[in-house]
């Protein structure tokens, strides 16, 4: 597994370096910050803002995965664990130049099932397993301090990440739930996103084809 990890790291590094158009980090941070502020002013309800950020992330994710697969030429991941590794070492590295740490958790025993796996053509990994991404630096939230209303309202400032992960993985036939577990902006020790596999998606016939 460590050979794979090294490979992923070098692939991620190469992707980041080979990209010619990079954007100024402060501009990116300020833009995202302005976006969140505007959403808060428009919706005034922090849980609604969370939902909207997730939706926006979903739209970004569905498009981002194409870009990612085209550039990285990675094949199918053998199991959900590998999915976590690839996302953290190649994905985040290539787009944001950060390397979150990933920890895996197997599915709880009762929910152990492999029916979904066989239908998806050989993908192993029980439904219900999850991995956690721990971000030690978050480019979206540089210089941000949450005011008290945001803290009380339960705002996850970087919720767009959850949407991106959900959208991207849905395009590769995995339905996942991505949620924030903790956030340094809220005063916790780490920023952690938990991604849980709900099920593998079957190929669906587009409506109207028959």
């Amino acid at each position: 597994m460590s050979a794979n990890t090294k490979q992923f790291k070098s692939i991620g590094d190469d992707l980041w370096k080979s990209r010619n158009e990079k954007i100024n980090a402060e501009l990116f941070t300020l833009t995202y910050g302005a976006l969140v502020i505007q959403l808060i002013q428009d919706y005034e309800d922090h849980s609604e803002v969370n939902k909207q950020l997730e939706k926006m992330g979903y739209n970004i994710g569905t498009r981002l995965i194409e870009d990612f697969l085209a550039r990285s030429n990675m094949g199918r991941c053998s199991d959900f664990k590998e999915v976590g590794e690839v996302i953290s070492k190649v994905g985040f590295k290539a787009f944001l130049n950060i390397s979150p740490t990933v920890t895996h958790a197997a599915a709880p025993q009762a929910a152990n099932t492999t029916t979904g796996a066989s239908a998806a053509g050989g993908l192993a990994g029980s439904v219900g397993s999850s991995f956690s991404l721990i971000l030690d630096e978050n480019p979206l939230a540089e210089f941000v301090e949450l005011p008290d209303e945001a803290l009380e309202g339960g705002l996850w400032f970087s919720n767009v990440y959850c949407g991106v992960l959900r959208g991207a993985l849905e395009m590769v036939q995995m339905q996942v739930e991505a949620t924030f577990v903790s956030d340094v902006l809220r005063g916790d020790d780490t920023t952690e996103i938990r991604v849980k596999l709900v099920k593998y998606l079957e190929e669906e016939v587009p409506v109207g084809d028959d």
Partner: protein
Amino acid sequence: MSHHLFLLSPSDTPLYQLTHQSTRPAQSTTSALSSNLPSWSASAFAGTVAALSGASSISSSGAQGASSKGGPVGGGQDRHVVQMIANASLDVIEETMKTNGAMYLKSVEKFNEWTVSAFVTPGNMKFVLLHESKNDDGIKSFFMDVWENYVKTMMNPFHTAHTPIRSVVFDNKVRASAKKYL
């Protein structure tokens, strides 16, 4: 020996205020002023605003809702005097700004034993420091530090140009920097 720092927005709204007791040995006797003032006065901010609007003609921050706390008013003339001096010096600062393009305007005014030093940022924020002793270099470094911390606070998307600065992080940094340089 104490120092009073005021941060004023371009529209002369007070955004931040700090009173700092210097631990450095002062050359003169401790003035009656310093002994009365508390070493940390951010919690009386609303009172400060009320006092400012009362003590001077600049009352743009009246919307803060004058909380007539007994604290600052009871704290004595001292507080009022300090703020009056700070406000009075704004005129002088603006005069100096017209001629002097530099950011750090040294001592713009003297009032009894208080000297007023000012620092104007490119964004037209004024940092006004009242102090008793002469400490140009230290004050300059202090202002630069405050400026840096201010810029970082400005980068916070939740902060707008005219909101009072309530960030604890900023507060701690400015206090630490005051200890270091003043």
